[in-house]
């Protein structure tokens, strides 16, 4: 079989189950591609090739013996390096934790392995999932496969870049202010921040307890639903875990959008943070296409992006300070400049600020819940600009906060970002869909309809 690296997780699992492709053959093909491309992309902090080959051989034997583990049997996966993989360092891309070896798998990793997935290694992130593309850390920042002079988004940078480049068909990321959806947007793939509490965070290095989510990054909507199916579910040992039913995420994916009510949150990109012309045109195209497919499009208003961002920042920095305060006191020079600057503000926020932010947060949750009583799904911008040039710190600093992802970390609603098209210079443009709590299946329904109409799953970066 040619082009094994562009196999989706679903297709790979099917081919492995049918013995058309061996897990060893697939893993070796991806390792060869990683060896060739990763020096340009910096996706991996730690590639665990020997363990991956050993796991692939075991998976092959299990298939021969007729004992497949689950729906991802033999399919390789990359893991963001704030998520524990037993025996490997969880460095969080930081000098602070360079020798921090994980004793056991995070729950999400254990669930992937239980479904048969093969862990390839640990992936580049922004330092502690907050800094930004930094050149003063022990490892270089990941780069965008659509154009390596550009930022792949973050903080799950390696996850986004590696999936888009065909180094692996799926990856785990985390999202506290948009960190799954940002690389999905910048790299032209599919990234989901599930409902708060749907996926266990146990074994994931925290950034902000009440904003942190773990989510899947894939090249197709179907793969995203499949991966969520595996990692979702209640974890009694994660205090934020929701006791909600999980599963059935692909159930409505082929159903189309006829009759579905979609609320277009135009003010996010038209007045709150005016988007680039190409981003705005891309959003109009998505909305128009969904309407032509039978969706009932209407405009919806939510609180302004600026205030969502402020509430997110106060909560995030207050909570993060309680994690990083002692290191910032004793080892401030061991952080990169960007992470240090983004973590220090917590020292200057008061308990009153934090309580006010949470009080305002409840009003924002109510506002989004109200909107989602009027419509089934929200459509809005993800990024307001195409990906910045990675070595242009000023451009990155200017464009990084120009996004509409943080609102749904504040409220906890599920949000999916994916490709809306390509800019005139060949960089991905993006769109975001937001749903009711635990209604991820409806998000996949809308995203699937857009994917089929636009063929976003067949567009790959011109690399390798």
């Amino acid at each position, binding site marked *: 079989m040619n082009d094994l690296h562009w196999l989706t997780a679903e297709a790979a699992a099917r081919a492995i189950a049918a013995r058309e492709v061996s897990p060893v053959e697939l893993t070796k093909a991806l390792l060869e591609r990683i060896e060739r491309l990763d020096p340009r992309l910096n996706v991996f902090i730690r590639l665990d090739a020997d363990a991956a080959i050993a796991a692939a051989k075991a998976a092959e034997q299990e298939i021969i013996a007729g004992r497949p583990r689950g729906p991802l049997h033999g399919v390789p996966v990359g893991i963001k390096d704030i998520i524990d993989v037993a025996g490997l360092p969880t460095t969080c891309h930081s000098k602070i934790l360079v020798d921090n070896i994980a004793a056991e798998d995070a729950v999400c990793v254990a669930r992937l392995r239980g479904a048969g997935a093969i862990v390839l290694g640990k992936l580049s992130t922004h330092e502690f999932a907050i800094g930004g593309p930094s050149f003063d850390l022990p490892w270089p920042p990941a780069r965008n496969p659509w154009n390596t002079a550009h930022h792949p988004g973050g903080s799950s940078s390696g996850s986004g870049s590696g999936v888009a480049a065909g180094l692996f068909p799926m990856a785990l990321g985390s999202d506290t202010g948009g960190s799954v959806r940002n690389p999905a947007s910048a790299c032209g793939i599919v990234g989901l921040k599930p409902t*708060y509490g749907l996926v266990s965070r146990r074994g994931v290095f925290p950034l902000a307890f009440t904003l942190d989510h773990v989510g899947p990054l894939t090249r197709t909507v179907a793969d995203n639903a499949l991966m969520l199916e595996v990692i979702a579910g209640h974890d009694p040992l994660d205090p934020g875990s929701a006791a909600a039913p999980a599963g059935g995420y692909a159930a409505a994916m082929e159903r189309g959008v006829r009759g579905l009510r979609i609320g277009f949150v135009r003010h996010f990109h038209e007045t709150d943070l005016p988007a680039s012309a190409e981003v705005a045109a891309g959003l109009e195209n998505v909305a128009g296409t969904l309407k032509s497919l039978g969706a009932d499009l209407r405009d919806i208003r939510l609180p302004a992006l600026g205030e969502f961002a402020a509430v997110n920042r106060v909560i995030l920095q207050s909570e993060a300070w309680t994690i990083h305060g002692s290191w910032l006191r004793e080892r401030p*020079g061991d952080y990169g400049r960007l992470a240090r600057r983004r973590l220090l503000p917590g020292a200057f926020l*008061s308990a009153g600020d934090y309580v006010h932010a949470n009080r305002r947060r409840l009003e924002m949750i109510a506002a989004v819940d109200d909107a989602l009583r009027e419509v089934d799904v929200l459509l809005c911008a993800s990024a307001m600009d195409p990906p910045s040039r990675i070595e242009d710190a000023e451009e990155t600093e200017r464009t990084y906060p120009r996004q509409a992802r943080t609102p749904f970390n504040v409220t906890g609603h599920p949000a999916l970002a994916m490709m809306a098209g390509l800019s005139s210079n060949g960089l991905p443009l993006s769109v975001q869909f937001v749903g009711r709590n635990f209604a991820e299946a409806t998000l996949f329904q809308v995203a699937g309809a857009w994917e089929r109409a636009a063929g976003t799953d067949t567009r790959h970066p011109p690399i390798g």
Partner: protein
Amino acid sequence: MRGNATTPGSAVMERAAIDRTTIELLARRAGLDKALAAFPDDVTAAATQAGTAAARMQAPADPRAEPWPPMKVGAGR
């Protein structure tokens, strides 16, 4: 703070600009002497950013409103 118990919170939280002496005082109180010595610009930027973010939040519509629980989506809807 503007806003009161009977009007919706449309006003942002007021906050006086923070001066360098206050920043240093607050930084030392937080135990950030090393950061203050080695990265004074980062500490100043952080203090300013914290003040800006806090000031951009609207005053609560009702000061009696409960802030908790912030994130309990429960059993689904």
